[in-house]
């Protein structure tokens, strides 16, 4: 075996309440593509941040090309030849491509020379870029090119890529892979972080698997199946989610030719989206992140009003109604971001329960006064029914783990007996995943699911929600990176089912009784939006 380019030995890093990395050791060979695998929260991000100088480990050493590597800042890491393409948070929307690239370089040449270099390098690697454009106007794939070119201009010895394909279309992924292979041929080592096992099998020659902050396995991904690697990641056997045919009922939610501008700067407008959801049916909405899923949720929840006739609930036009009005009629939503959107972080669970349930649960009395006792009782019921791990309803939402808060938020809506439930990214919670980190957790979620099915007809759907969102054509559940924060939550979903369905929404029907219908959005790793296309 050749000498390692980067040798990591015994890296340990603890945060208050959490040990992110515990005695992590592995080697990266020169001119290789090395995968770092693990669920969200397994400690991948902390580890690469340590290599890149953003985090200082509590213990352990690193050696880069035979020399000790202990960067105190990203600048030192860059000087040592380490470059990193971030998953998020590293571009400046209001600045130009060239300015963005200059910011990531140690000694950038004058802007004019730099622009010429950018053109040159980006052409060489098949990643065309216009240095003068404002980054905020670029597509997700183009934005990533900016980051990659920024790294390439520094001729790095080690390139770290954190979830690079989460926002790319299949075509863009293909270009990226050929770029990475070209780089490997040129002698650059690449540390590739992903959940997407098929990608890793296609690209990498070695994989280090992390679980709970520890290295649990090292393997050659070309020799393992995706399922085997997934099981190493979660430390247990994967179960295929059950699926049953049920009769579907009437159309409850109809979206017709929905077009609306995005309320956010650099957001994605909705263009001509149409679909219908029947009672007892789960409709999946796929697509690359940032292609209007968030806007669609806002348009359905009522946070964004739309023109008449575009959104109908049981035949009634609800497009002009406020979120409260829609809730009253049975259209309930659970947004993607739990803290700060679906729930207020510094409010208690009782208050968070009251937040959306005040009308359907009759939690206000005459004159607009709050029935706090009723709200507390409702919160307690959510906690009990959905097995939310918390000392009680008077705890703030911030104190709950991601998965527990997710259970609370989804449970809050389900217990209000929705006619239609819209769920955005339901599986990114830590605790409500199929075959979760520990086998006990998996059993638990199975049990709750069963219990709920008995109590609440139709909520078995939520049980389905806890499992991987799967495509009928695919054999294994494929982990998929989430949108948003550096390490937000774990989920695996189908990669590419909507694309395979020819861009049309595919229907996943689910067990029991009639209503409620579920519409859930999960930006898939590949493929385009369901009802509209990227420009």
């Amino acid at each position, binding site marked *: 075996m050749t000498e390692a380019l980067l040798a990591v030995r015994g890296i340990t890093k603890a*945060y208050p309440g959490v040990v992110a990395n515990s005695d992590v050791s592995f080697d990266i060979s020169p001119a290789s593509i090395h995968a770092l695998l693990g669920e969200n929260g397994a400690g991948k991000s902390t580890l690469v941040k340590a290599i890149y100088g953003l985090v200082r480990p509590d213990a352990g050493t690193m050696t880069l090309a035979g020399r000790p590597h202990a960067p105190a800042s990203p600048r030192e890491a860059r000087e040592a030849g380490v470059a990193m393409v971030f998953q998020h948070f590293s571009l400046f*929307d209001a600045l130009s491509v060239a300015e963005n690239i200059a*910011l990531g370089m140690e000694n950038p040449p004058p802007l004019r020379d730099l622009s010429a270099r950018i053109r040159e390098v980006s052409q060489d690697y098949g990643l065309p870029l216009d240095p003068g454009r404002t980054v905020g106007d670029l597509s997700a794939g183009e934005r990533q090119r900016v980051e990659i070119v920024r790294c390439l201009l520094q001729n790095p010895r080690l390139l770290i890529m954190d979830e690079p394909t989460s926002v790319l279309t299949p075509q863009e992924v293909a270009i990226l892979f050929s770029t990475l292979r070209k780089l490997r041929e040129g002698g650059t080592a690449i540390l590739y972080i992903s959940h997407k096992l098929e990608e890793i099998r296609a690209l990498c020659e070695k994989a280090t698997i992390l679980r709970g902050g520890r290295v649990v396995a090292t393997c050659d991904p070309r020799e393992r199946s995706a399922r085997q690697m997934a099981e190493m990641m979660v430390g247990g056997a994967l179960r295929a989610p059950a699926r049953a045919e049920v009769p579907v009922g009437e159309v409850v939610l109809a979206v017709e030719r929905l077009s609306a501008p995005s309320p956010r700067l650099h957001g994605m407008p909705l263009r001509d989206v149409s679909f219908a959801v029947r009672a007892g049916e789960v409709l999946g909405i796929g697509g690359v992140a940032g292609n209007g899923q968030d806007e669609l949720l806002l348009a359905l929840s009522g946070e964004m009003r739309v023109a008449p006739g575009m959104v109908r609930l049981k035949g009634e036009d609800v497009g002009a109604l406020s979120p409260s009005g829609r809730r009253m009629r049975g259209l309930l939503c659970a947004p993607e971001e739990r803290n700060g959107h679906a729930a207020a972080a510094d409010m208690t669970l009782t208050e968070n329960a009251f937040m959306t349930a005040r009308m359907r649960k009759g939690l206000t009395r005459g004159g607009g006064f709050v029935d706090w006792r009723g709200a507390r009782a409702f919160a307690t019921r959510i906690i009990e029914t959905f097995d939310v791990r918390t000392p009680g309803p008077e705890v703030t939402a911030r104190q709950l783990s991601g998965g527990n808060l997710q259970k609370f938020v989804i449970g809050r809506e389900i217990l209000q007996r929705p006619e239609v439930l819209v769920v955005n990214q339901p599986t990114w919670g830590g605790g409500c995943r199929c075959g979760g980190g520990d086998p006990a957790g998996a059993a638990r979620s199975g049990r709750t699911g069963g219990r709920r099915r008995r109590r609440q007809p139709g909520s078995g759907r939520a049980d389905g929600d806890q499992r991987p969102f799967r495509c009928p054509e695919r054999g294994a559940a494929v982990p998929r990176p989430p949108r948003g924060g550096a390490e937000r939550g774990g989920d695996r979903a189908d990669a590419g089912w909507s694309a395979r369905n020819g861009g049309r929404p595919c229907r996943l029907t689910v067990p029991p009784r009639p209503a409620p219908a579920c519409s859930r959005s999960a930006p898939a790793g590949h493929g385009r939006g369901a009802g509209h296309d990227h420009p």
Partner: protein
Amino acid sequence: MNLSGISPVLLLASLMVASTPILLAALGELVAERSGVLNLGVEGMMITGAITGFAVAVATGSPWIGFVGAAAGGAALSLLFAVLVLWLRSNQVATGLALTLFGIGLAALVGQAYVGVRAPVFARLDLPVLGDLPILGPILFRHDAVVYLGLGLVAGVWWFLHRTRAGLRLRAVGENHDAAHALGYKVQLIRLGAVLFGGALAGLGGAYLSLVRVPQWTQGVTAGAGWIALAIVVFASWRPWRLLLGAWLFGGISVLQLNLQAARVPIPVEVLSMAPYVVTILVLVLISSGRGRAALAAPGSLGQPFHAAR
């Protein structure tokens, strides 16, 4: 009423002078806001600069040293703000208000000894030849050095922000502090520098009021100029050259209303003296409602606290 007494040339010339304090303060605030810090304490820093500048000038007999003292005074007050906001993570809006209240109190206390004292005269720079030009001479070339300093600083700030690497970093920090941190830039230190610069310029602006414009110490000498400066930054969409335009607009209005008062126009004096404030509101409305909405140009991280996990 005698409108013929109002000479357009003199009006434009005094406009240059009247706009200088607001221009200086707004320019400092622009840099601070470009780095992502909203410092609502401009009024407090200005009035602190006004009194320290005045006191130092009286003590040393030199207006120049007075201006240096004013810049130091404004910067010292802004340091207080920076420590609270950047390291103790207090709310930027509340802390800015506190800074204003504190600064006004401080200035009033220190200023008691200086009521009625005359400031040393700050000489005008009559530029030879240029100053003798008809019309343009009096408008552009017969002012004191601080007027030119203000104009030079506009160009300097523009050059710094858009043509230097340090300026690019400052804009990057204001645009997205998480990304800047991820790239290894010292967000807090860059912001500290920007806030201190803002404080120093606000101090200069204040001293220009007490040493040149008025020129004596009176309580509340700034009379809301700091707030107008804040408004001008929004008006200018955070761009230095448009800032100059805004400062001239407000300088023009305050000079015009003073001239109208002197000309005994049959409008109550009070109505005339509200004019600058009313116009500020109108301009704010126009700028925030138009197609090029001002909010769109605001630095991405403006006013948001930054907490880096290490």
